[in-house]
């Protein structure tokens, strides 16, 4: 396949409609002086927007999280608790998060009209419904491309956990595809002891020469991926400690929780502090067809500790104004409780939580009916949410990428941002 994505040249960094034009004018409040680590503070530019997504795989129950319906036929055993926003209640499974709701917002009126894991996952992460033969870039690839900084050589689209390179950047090109990390420096990222620095430089120079010559006539997406992978590997080697969560303090490890999600959220903070524009942390698994309440008690206990600590830290360090935080799944879960105390797939009336950047703190958008079976106010779809995420980090979500002379809309043109959710 011939490479048709943006070449990365300065001309192509902006699309014709100058979608990045609004970024520089984005409202950014400083607060960087609050950073506890001056070295980190120095690396964060005041106008750099970032995104962190917590993806609750399998479909978290909106009734056990953001839109509880206690004492109704669908309510289940958990109660609702007040939050730091007067009048807004969330599930009692999220007591620590409840104290941060004045920094967050809820969208309680999502109808994605889909109950399939794969399709829902695509909808929420790519902002469109999957079409055969058509590829769109992941939210992370869009953000990596649109929010990248020339002075930061690190990959812009990180998945935690993970261990490989994703193929999720479509026409934006492989340099914006996700890189999986597990909280430690990538395997084999140290220069072999038997190889001197000088010898290493010589062999890399030689590789570049050979690549450049080959690319003059035979450049393809695949060869670009190889080239990009080598270059990025070199950059990773130089800054490998960025990916080493064990460099964080023992106290922070305790605060986030000594379990995978806790350490992954701490890793996310570390990556964001080092200027990486998009980090996605996955927590698995919420596909609770059986014993939904036991499993949500278990999973959301971890989530509440890790997520609330992350939100608190981003706020305390002055980063929340420039960091969009999103908690999403592929869908919600059925209001109806099944025979095994489970809830099944449900894309008709569910919720996401988001905050930071230009999201209006404390906002609640949309409403479901008394027992949560349908949306009764301000119905939105995945496309609207995707636009909203981009708008929240100062991008013109109606803009487009220039891909080999062809305009590729950043987000589904048939949708629009939820403007009342934005400041």
């Amino acid at each position, binding site marked *: 396949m011939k490479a048709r994505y943006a070449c990365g040249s300065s001309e192509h960094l902006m699309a014709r409609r100058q979608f990045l034009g609004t970024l520089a004018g984005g409202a950014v409040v400083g607060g960087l002086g609050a950073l506890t680590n001056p070295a980190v503070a120095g690396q964060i530019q005041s106008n750099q927007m970032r995104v962190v997504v917590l993806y609750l795989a*399998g479909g978290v129950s909106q009734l056990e999280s953001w839109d509880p319906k*206690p*004492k109704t*036929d669908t309510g*289940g*055993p*958990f*109660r609702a608790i007040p939050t730091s926003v007067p009048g807004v209640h969330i599930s009692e499974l999220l007591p620590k998060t409840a104290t941060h709701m004045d920094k967050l917002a809820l969208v309680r009126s999502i109808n994605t009209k889909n109950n399939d894991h794969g399709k829902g996952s695509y909808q929420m992460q790519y902002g469109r419904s999957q079409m055969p033969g058509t590829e769109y870039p992941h939210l992370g690839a869009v953000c990596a491309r649109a929010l990248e900084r020339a002075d930061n050589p690190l990959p812009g689209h990180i998945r935690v956990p993970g261990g490989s390179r994703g193929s999720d950047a479509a026409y934006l090109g492989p340099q914006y595809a996700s890189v999986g990390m597990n909280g430690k420096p990538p395997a084999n990222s140290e220069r072999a002891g038997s190889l001197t620095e000088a010898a290493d430089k010589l062999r890399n120079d030689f590789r570049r020469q050979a690549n450049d010559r080959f690319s003059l006539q035979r450049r393809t997406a695949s060869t670009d991926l190889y080239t990009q992978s080598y270059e990025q590997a070199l950059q990773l080697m130089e800054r490998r400690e960025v990916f080493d969560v064990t460099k964080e303090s023992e106290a922070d490890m305790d605060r986030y929780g000594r379990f*995978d999600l806790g350490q992954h959220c701490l890793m996310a903070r570390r990556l964001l502090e080092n200027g990486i524009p998009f980090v996605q942390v996955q*927590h*698995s*698994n919420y*596909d*609770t*067809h*059986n*014993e939904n309440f*036991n*499993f949500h*008690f*278990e*999973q959301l206990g971890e989530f509440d500790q890790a997520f609330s600590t992350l939100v608190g830290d981003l706020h305390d360090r002055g980063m929340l104004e420039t960091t969009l935080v999103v908690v999403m799944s592929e869908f919600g879960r059925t209001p109806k*409780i*099944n*025979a*095994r105390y*489970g809830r099944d797939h449900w894309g008709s009336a569910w919720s996401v939580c988001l905050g930071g950047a230009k999201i209006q703190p404390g906002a609640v958008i949309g409403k479901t009916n008394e027992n949560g079976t349908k949306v009764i106010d301000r119905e939105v779809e995945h496309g609207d949410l995707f636009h909203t995420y981009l708008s929240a980090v100062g991008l013109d979500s109606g803009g487009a990428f220039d891909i080999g002379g062809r305009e590729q809309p950043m987000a589904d043109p048939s949708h629009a941002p939820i403007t009342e959710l934005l400041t």
Partner: protein
Amino acid sequence: MALDVTKTHVLHEWKYGKPMIACRYEPQGRFLFSSSEDYSLQRWNAESGEKIAWEAHDSWVRDFAFLPDGETVISAGCDDRIIFWPTAAEKPEPKVEVAAHKGWVRCVDVNGDGSLIASGGNDRLVKLWSPDGKLVKELAGHERDVYSVFFHPDGRFLLSGDLDGKVHQWEVATGKLARTFEAKDLHSYNGGQGVHYGGIRDITLSADKKTLAMTGLHKASNPLGAVNEPLNYLFDWESGKEVRKQPADGIKGIGTNIDFLSDGTELVASGGSGGGYLLFFKAGEEKHFHNLKLKDTVRGMSVHPDGLRVATTHYDGHIRISKMTEKAA
């Protein structure tokens, strides 16, 4: 008519109309108490099936226990509370309300002389209460949620089972942990799904006090999808050694309750993706020798004090009363 479990049949289907959760017969055998997903409690006349229902807790009720004279029923709620009710009152009003645990109270039991009530919860604690609702002792040591509590009939020990498949034996007088029974197969951690699953769903002791029995599930290849099978563990009380495991091969479900019948038969209720069953085991054998498939999945079970009737609660909104004798002519 004499007990003959091979002739067990459904005697009554009593409809409530909302998905049912737990049930327990009152010690005198007059009433059956049950709970349902509509946050109410029900009291059924054990003979006629007449019922009253009332809203009780701010959440679901997962277990009941009675003071020995049967005049006080204690409900264990997912709203942190245990509530003491007058069993036979026309309109039951709480006698005592106790904020017992932080989170769900999953289980409750009363000792033989009625001087102590034990509760276990999602806060991983076991607590002992006086009949007037005062905290007597707090027993810490479980590393995961406490699923079941059971007083040894001689009153000296309390047993508590948890999600990890561990049963702690506590000395009631001192609160010291005497020993731990490990039913390892009743717990699993699924790394792919990131969940702990299983637990000691119920504990009982044989009439001769020689065999400690517990039930739950194993073969949990897909916890989130309800792919698992019931499993019992039997331990020799004196030595503490495992005597045998009793799987119910091919039945997809969870052992929710276990009890010994007067002839020594173990009766286990199983509910899950394979439907509802009453399973009958002999303590000396590995496989169940008889089962009765019920019309809908089972969520709770209680044996009547006459030892011949067994009540089960069902998702389809019914109580089913099965009789473990030959059918009346």
